[in-house]
């Protein structure tokens, strides 16, 4: 036992020195890197410190978050963390608790936003430049072969064709992530449609379902939205619901109209905006277009780049736009 102990001790010592050797080559020193961050911060006119960006689970938002985050790292020397959370309740609680500093793509959690502004935990920073469109979509082949499916009045005629093992004899309507802003169940009920809403679980599952439906000419109707890069790859057509009018979605259980076009919003924690962090100005100034976002989303999804690399590539190609955010 004693023998082993000494042997063991030696082994550990050898391993330790091997690690030293390993880590010694290349790199540079921690204090240099710290100074580099400090000088970036000084050049940008102040300290950035910790910058926690909330990331909700869809690729368009991922594009927003990483472009802002990588710009903050590169130009302001911020210490960026990406906080992956569900939209709505969890994200707003994070703003209040300090676990997150900004929401970059708020769609329509009006209740949460109102409450957060009222209790002083968050401020509404206006649009990131994107306009969100939510609606009911069918794959392109279906719209071509049965154009009348694009009118909700004809949906019941086709309900049987949309049926699956999950829809209990009715037509299946494919919802998405259960936390997204969606009131399809209410629309189905209030328009007396013979459909049942089944949730795919997330963006990727929904995208896959539409891809598959288009390839195999399967019947599919579901919740989808723009900006989403997949529109460039898979043709989809929007089904017309009774047009949106002001307030027709006020009581979510009674909605019987289409979704409103949503000017997306940036929402930030009040504490963060008051902290004097240079990242606060970046968030305030950040704005881009649906095309910009779709391009970065395409880098991530179709070209399989990591979100960091995709953002860095876009930043390198669009220095002028990024410089406009850093004043």
């Amino acid at each position, binding site marked *: 036992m004693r023998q082993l102990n000494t042997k063991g001790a030696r082994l550990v010592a050898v*391993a330790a020195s091997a690690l030293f050797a390993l*880590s010694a080559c290349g790199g540079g020193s921690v204090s240099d890197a710290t100074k580099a961050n400090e000088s970036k911060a000084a050049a940008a006119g102040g300290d950035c410190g910790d910058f926690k960006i909330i990331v909700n689970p869809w690729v368009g938002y991922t594009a927003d978050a990483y472009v802002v985050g990588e710009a903050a790292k590169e130009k302001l020397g911020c210490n960026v963390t990406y906080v992956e959370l569900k939209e709505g309740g969890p994200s707003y609680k994070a703003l209040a608790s300090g676990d997150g500093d900004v929401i970059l793509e708020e769609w329509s959690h009006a209740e949460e936003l109102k409450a957060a502004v009222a209790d002083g935990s968050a401020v509404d920073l206006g649009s990131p430049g994107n306009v969100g469109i939510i609606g009911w979509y069918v794959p392109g082949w279906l719209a071509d072969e049965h154009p009348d499916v694009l009118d909700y009045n004809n949906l019941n005629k086709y309900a049987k064709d949309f049926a699956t*093992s999950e829809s209990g004899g009715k037509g299946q309507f494919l919802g998405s992530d259960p936390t997204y802003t969606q009131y399809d169940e209410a629309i189905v009920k209030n328009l007396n449609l013979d459909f049942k809403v089944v949730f795919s679980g997330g963006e990727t599952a929904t995208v896959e379902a539409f891809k598959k439906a288009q390839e195999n000419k399967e019947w599919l109707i579901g919740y989808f939205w723009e900006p989403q890069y997949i529109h460039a790859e898979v043709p989809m057509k929007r089904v017309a619901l009774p047009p949106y009018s002001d307030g027709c979605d006020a009581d979510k259980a009674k909605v019987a109209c289409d979704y409103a076009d949503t000017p997306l919003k940036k929402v930030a924690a009040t504490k963060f905006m008051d902290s004097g962090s240079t990242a606060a100005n970046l968030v305030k100034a950040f704005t881009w277009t649906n095309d910009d976002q779709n391009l970065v989303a395409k880098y991530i999804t179709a070209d399989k780049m990591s979100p960091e690399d995709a953002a860095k590539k876009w930043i390198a190609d669009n220095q002028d736009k990024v410089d406009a955010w850093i004043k």
Partner: protein
Amino acid sequence: MSASTLDRPVELGAAPPEPEPKKRIPRWVGVLAAIVVWILVWSFTKGHNTLYLAGLDLTDLHVKLAKLGAGLGNNAFTDSVNTAINAIVDFLSKLVALPSAPSPAPVIGWLGVTAIATWVGYALANWRIAVLVLASFLSFGIFGFWQDSMGLLVVTFVSVVLAVLLGLPLAILIGVSKRAATVITLLLDLLQTMPTFVYLIFVFILFGIGAPAAVICTLAYALPPIVRISGFAIRDTNPGVLEATDSYGQSTWQRLVKVQVPMARKTIILGLNQTILAALSMAIIASYVNGPGLGKPVLAALTQNDFGRGLVPGMLIVLMGIMLDRLTTAASERSELIARGGGENVKRRRVILGALLVPVAAAVWYSTYALNAAVFPESQLGTNVANAANKWMDATVASLSGPAGALKDAITYGLLNPMQALLSTSPWWLSFAAILIIGLIIGGRKALVPTLICLLGLRLLDVWFDSMVVLNMTLVATLLVMVLALFFGVWMARSKRADLIIRPILDAGQTIPAFVYLIPVLALFDSTRFTAIVAAIVYAAPAAIKLVADGVRGVNPGTVEAGRSVGQTTWQEITKVQLPMAKGSLVLATNQGLLYVLAMVVIGGLVGAGALGYDVIYGLAHQEASGKGMAAGLSIVLLGVMIDRITRAAAARAGAD
């Protein structure tokens, strides 16, 4: 179940049938009869009073609960808990995990942390463990998850320390007072029956988002083992020793501190070990409330259907579990050895440990100096493994998708849909009465009161329809689990070789986090209830199979031998001797199977199975629906308790037979 019950119409308020008939009719006949009556009544009442509630519909109760919930959080108590835990976790995270700005690295870099951990491994256990610790820490970095791994370690550490601080006093209470033991055990039962997913909604409402919420979730699940195991160890101290020491006139305190706790030490460490592993298994659930750690990439992989990206951090969680398990086990063995006064030269060991501190200190210093020793150098290994895993999965899914679809349709149309029609499209009072009567037949009089209370609770919470859908999925999945358990369990019990091959597969199934295999299952079966059922089977079957195998193996070999001597066939031997005699383990396996399945089926609500799991997660995201989310969470708990009580009562009866 006597014949007279069958003639009686099944309706609410009907007197419960005579539980134990004088002449014994097998129980399954009674259950079958009850189901036949149920179907008869259903056929002309279906579709009425089903209490169906559309996804966005709320009842008054739900609105009231949401208001109540909004008032619960953000009080002085939760605020101070949040502040305290945040301060501790923040401090530890900046020390070892997260960059402490403006520096790009934590205070102690990876090299320093690894050196300290390895030294601790050696100090607490032996050099083998030190090597294991070293290898584990290096893997965290090489696979590209250093920060998340350290985050998980920090949360686990804080939760376990709190579990010990809260748990040991409770354990001592159990040890010294019978009444306290009853109350505490009841609470622990509740915590352990509750699917962990349900913790989320309550923790979210009280503590919001962040490390404190994650710690509290983890604590809730990690507390029971240490209280239970240590409590009973303290209580069961050898009575001879107690009498002998009592005869010297010791006080209760002396008896506790000098005799009971020291004698139970080894078992207490076992409790600690179980508590650590329980804490780790909460990693993914805790990341729903932004708990730091390896659960986050796993969860992100689920939303992106990226199997490989979830598999790698999932396996690192397993590795961390193995490391901590071996470390605590070896540490307890070593302390036992030293307590008996043997094993090693203490002085010499101290010298070695002291000497080893020099390289450790050097490593720590170096990790604050050189960037490569502070931030783990990037490596493509994790990405490559993830890509390979994805390639493998795609190929497997492509080749299996035909038969998988057929299987899904067969079970959905053959079993799931008809049963769901019966359970959920019956008027609520019919399902209510039918479940109560069937529970009574299976569990006996002991099951009556708990079943009645749970059913009343489910009715009051206003998510009855969704509860029936979940109950149905749970029953179907458990049925399939038990078919597998009987087949593989008997096979393993009868063949050593089968046991040797199957058991490691079962062990693996039990250790891999469920969220990791949810992704390929989802790819195979799409967003359906069947996906939830298959994931539940993978989660629950290993434990059930093992229980059946051990039960059948435990059957007295003499009885089996006697049967053989009169020329029984193998089939007769299994069905007439082995299975009937292992009835107790079969019921126990069913109990475990049901609870495991329930926990997983609820998570399936996120990927197409809908119902209660969906209500919970929707309630998390939407303030106005949070009351319904709470009601759904409580309903899941009631379903769990009901299932548990009925099967436990049945197990007690099977044992008495």
